[in-house]
């Protein structure tokens, strides 16, 4: 890839990011609900329009939308992300305190799902109609149909209340993120297993797999040896979009288990119409999605140069 093309790609990505940020900026302001009125109602301030106007000025909402956007953009790129309407705290400080929880839950859950899902997918391909095949199908359907909130509450009820195996709220850091991580993993294992299975199944119809069997290799060894790359490639292709939404996708787990993560904070910010928190969050998620999707594409090309 030439330097010019690289620069063009970066420029295209930057423009896309800018467009997403601008669109989000406008859409947030089109959401019903004035942040000042929501705040005053929330904190039970009985006041006239003068106090509302003071808050509007303090939060920069008295300027034109174009001026607000330019001010935000300049602040974002210079790492001055402003302060939350609701809490008055620095948005950057809030994000840095909460992001580790969300990342631990999101990446931990996804890593667990990849490990278990890959193996399950492999065994599902190995024995068509066997326990792994049926189990992975069941998990995939469950992941699509069961409400995450309800599953989280059931986990709490069984492990925390009935069996008392775990202090979901009061334990150490590991204990506090264990159930949320399991919840995130549960909802991804099935789909990852089915993706992986599809990759391995494709190999089972290939001549080189049949040749390996003819040479006397066991089915399981031949499938693992010759199907690993295909299974991995299929998984990467399917995993990239899921990873893209990992920042923010852990909200349910954080809310149910009371983890002070970033995703849970964003849900609060939506309820409060806290643009100061929502806008940098959207900007960060846009950057993350671009990184993941492009990273996934590059990885697949690296693994199999025939892919364009």
């Amino acid at each position, binding site marked *: 890839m030439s330097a010019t093309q690289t620069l063009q790609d970066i420029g295209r990505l930057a423009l896309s990011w800018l467009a997403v940020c601008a669109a989000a900026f406008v859409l947030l302001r089109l959401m*019903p*609900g*004035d942040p000042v*009125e*929501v705040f005053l*109602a*929330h*904190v*039970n*301030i*009985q*006041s*006239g*329009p003068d*106090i509302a106007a*003071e*808050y509007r000025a*303090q939060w920069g909402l008295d300027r034109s939308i174009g001026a607000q956007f330019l001010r935000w953009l300049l602040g974002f790129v210079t790492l001055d992300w402003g*302060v*939350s*309407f*609701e*809490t*008055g*705290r620095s948005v950057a400080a*809030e994000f840095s*305190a*909460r992001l580790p929880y969300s990342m631990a839950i999101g990446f931990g859950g996804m890593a667990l799902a990849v490990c278990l899902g890959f193996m399950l997918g492999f065994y599902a391909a190995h024995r068509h109609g066997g326990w792994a095949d049926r189990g992975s199908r069941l998990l995939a359907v469950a992941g699509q149909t069961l409400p995450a909130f309800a599953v*989280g*509450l059931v986990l*709490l*009820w069984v492990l*925390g*209340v009935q069996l*008392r*195996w*775990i*202090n*979901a*709220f*009061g*334990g*150490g850091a*590991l*204990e506090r993120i*264990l159930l949320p991580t399991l919840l995130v993993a549960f909802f991804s294992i099935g789909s990852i297993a089915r993706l992986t299975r599809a990759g391995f199944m494709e190999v089972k119809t290939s001549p080189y797999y049949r040749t390996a069997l003819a040479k006397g290799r066991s089915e399981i060894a031949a499938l693992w040896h010759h199907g690993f790359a295909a299974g991995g490639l299929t998984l990467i292709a399917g995993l990239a979009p899921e990873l893209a939404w990992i920042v923010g996708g852990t909200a349910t787990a954080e*809310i*149910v*288990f*009371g*983890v*002070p993560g970033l995703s*849970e*904070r964003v849900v*609060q910010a939506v*309820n409060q119409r806290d643009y100061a928190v929502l806008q940098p969050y959207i900007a960060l998620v846009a950057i993350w999605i671009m990184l993941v999707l492009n990273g996934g594409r590059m990885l697949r090309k690296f693994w199999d140069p025939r892919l364009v």
Partner: protein
Amino acid sequence: MTLFRLKPLLAATAICAALVTPVATYAEDLVIGQTFLASGLDPAEGSNGWAVVSHGIAEQLFQVSRDGEVVPNLAASAVQNADSSWLVELAADRFFSDGTPVTAAAVAEALNRTGAANPSARATAGRMVFSAVDEDTLRVDTEQPTSILPSILAEWAFPVYRLEGEEIIFTGPFAVEAFEPGGSIEMVPNAHYAGAADRPNVTLRRIGDGQSLALAFASGEVDMAFHLPVETLPMLAGIEGEAKSFPVAYQYMMWMNTRAGALADVRVRRAIDLVVNRADLVTAVQAGVPATGAFARSYPFAATEDLPHDPEEAGALLDAAGWQLGEDGMRRRDGVALELVLYAFPQRPDLLTFQPVLRGALAEIGISVRTQVTENPNDVATRGAFDLLLWAQHTAPAGDPGQFLSLFFETGAARNYTGWSNADYDALIAELRAESDPQARIALARDAQEMIAAQAPVSFLVTPEWHVGLSPALAGYEPWGSDYYVIRPDLRVAE
């Protein structure tokens, strides 16, 4: 072979068991779970002032008592000067948690800082300037004259604190040991607060979802769960501890748009108010008591008489207003049916529950109601784009009736959503505004509520109840004061 396979499994189980801490048992240290937590400790920012007082970390010069009266706390008294300024005498022997005495100079510095930074501190009397007259006396000059300074100083925006570099030091019964925004606060008894030896260490933990909070209480992880959704109470019936319900001052009400249409006629509004069966509403939401007026019954200025329920009288009023009952059970006047739109908002689920009950009640007297849900009730209210609008409002957060009765009902007031205008009422509120005698204010507030009831720009519906789970360690602790005073000096471990 089987044993060989079991070994890794047993090892993994042992590792998992070692990684998790032992399950909580009730101890002298308490864990309190709440659906909200201070997002910071600086009262000059956001709504932190409210949270730090609610958590038992900070105190104000005055506070609202369990009986709904404004009583001195860090202050001993307040008197108004002839020039409308005030002198506040501080209570003796009060200390910050680092042992520094509470002085007028320290209080003035803190409250001036808050007043400059936080618009909420300027909501009632404009900008207030605090200055120390001597060690124990504070002078307060208000931008707008007020006869109720103690009540204003009981608003959540005015906790007393002291800045020590970056650290903020308060006077409450508990001092902050560690703080994780959005997660938890570790608190220890303030050693310089009377009775410190009897108080436990407290961990205050935020569990944002009510269902999860109930499960945390059921599992014994929290000693107090504040506050629980009503539907979780049956689940908690069999566990150790108890769930206590207490009335809160967030009154449920229904605005009636008086600007035009059928509701411009007071007889129609009165008819609607009369047909509302408040007991049915309480049954529908499984908690609360029928409202008697604008304020919860615990306030001294609350109306004392039950609001009437009289469908026959309601029908007669509609007849008199020219709305005749047709054979199809609908009221019509000049061929036009009496149809109204009733809004509610999902942020208060109880209000959604009220909608079908009210629709049924109004149908009894021939009024057709279409129910709608809005995510943005403030916008609907401000634009006056409703016939009937269900609402929830803390009507006396600082223990005084004046603000609500003025701001929501005076002619042209900022939050007079119904467009109601009554010269007699305006004159009464002007009198209330000028009156400083507490007993006279109570009488005026009750008169104002009677006028409102007679004209019915609003129908006061229910004083709701909240539910708090208390473990045996907190047996006997009485929740009160809505969410303004959750943790108080009398929080002790039960014997």
